């Protein structure tokens, strides 16, 4: 049994001087801070249309249409499924992509990545285990002609009918304009 005169259980001492951590409120942060972050399109998000913006982007969801991020990095995560033409400074692909992918500096197709389409960049890297079918244009092309027009297949971007906002700051979604290439054959 407990003794009535037993001392109360010790309570941890609280230092009243210790400041509480500042609340994380993204609204109070400036636009510069926001742009340093990478926007994320989550796995449950589906976008039909054109996505453009001025910050790095990680895509784990699905996009059908067009994706343009000048001077920014674009990562297609393992869960990402993209049927679109894409443009960015640095592009890393870990998921599935179908379309024309143009990198200002570099494109890396990771070991888990799969691409059916065209890769155009000064530097293209295929990692062990990746799956790729299509064309690659890489290196210094001094011609005025666009690399893709020098002999590549036509873009097979996705058809789209509706626009949806991805919900990330700095990224805008618009209806797509590219038309889907039609196959004369039924799907295998």
């Amino acid at each position, binding site marked *: 049994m407990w003794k009535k005169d037993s001392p109360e259980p010790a309570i941890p001492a609280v230092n009243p001087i210790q400041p509480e951590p500042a609340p994380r409120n993204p609204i109070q942060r400036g636009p510069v801070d926001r742009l340093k972050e990478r926007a994320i399109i989550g796995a449950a998000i589906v976008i039909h249309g054109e996505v453009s913006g001025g910050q790095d982007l990680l895509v784990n969801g699905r996009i059908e249409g067009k994706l343009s991020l000048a001077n920014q990095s674009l990562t297609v995560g393992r869960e990402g499924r993209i049927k679109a033409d894409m443009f960015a400074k640095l592009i890393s692909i870990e998921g599935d992509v179908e379309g024309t992918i143009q990198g200002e500096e570099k494109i890396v197709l990771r070991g888990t990545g799969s691409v059916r389409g065209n890769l155009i960049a000064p530097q293209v890297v295929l990692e062990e285990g990746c799956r790729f079918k299509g064309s690659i244009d890489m290196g*210094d092309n001094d011609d005025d002609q666009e690399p893709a027009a*020098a002999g590549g297949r036509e873009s097979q971007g996705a058809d789209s009918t509706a626009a949806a906002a991805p919900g990330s700051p700095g990224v805008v979604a618009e209806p797509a304009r590219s038309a889907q290439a039609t196959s004369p054959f039924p799907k295998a």
Partner: protein
Amino acid sequence: MRWSLLRNPEPRPAPEPTLPEAEIHSSVGFNIAYNQIRGQRKLSVLDLGSAYASNLKFLSQCVRFLHIEIEDLYDTLSSFDFFDPREPRSYDAVYRYLFPYGEETRFDLILGWDLFNYLEELELAGLIKHLDRFCYPGTLLFSMISTNRYIPERPIRFRIVDSERLRYEYLSSLLRPSPRYHRADLNRMMPHFQLFSSFRLRNGFKEYVFSFQGRS
């Protein structure tokens, strides 16, 4: 109907010793092709095999600008089950779909690897006829034809080790009969290509480098 490469007789287990997973062989034929293309400022390649980092890296280091089409044709054809081999126009339709290049497209080099061993005569002739339009006089075609009675069930995957060596990677230890095409067969199926050089390897492959002569 399926492509003939799937209609062929049941593959049989390889006799002992079984095929290794991978091995490296010298390739005089590839070296000949390499010496013809190196030093060019721009290079346009059609690779009928699989995409490999090492192959892309090697070819990109040969030139300042590389355009390469990678098709993995065996893998693609194997997935087709709507092709009627009795209808010659089927070949044209399939190849038009698989090689949707612009009229101005011309390749400097076609890497056929060992794919031709897995196509019947009509299929191979149809493929070459279709690719003719993307060649110019001097376009090189590198191919490896087996002289053995049996070949691996699926095409070997070739990685470029350097300008003189290829790494063979076997995807299956099963074997299937080889068509054992002879030079006369190839000449008949590839009327616009002329033999540039050929070499027989100890492993039973005969390496061919053909040069496109133009359509008369």
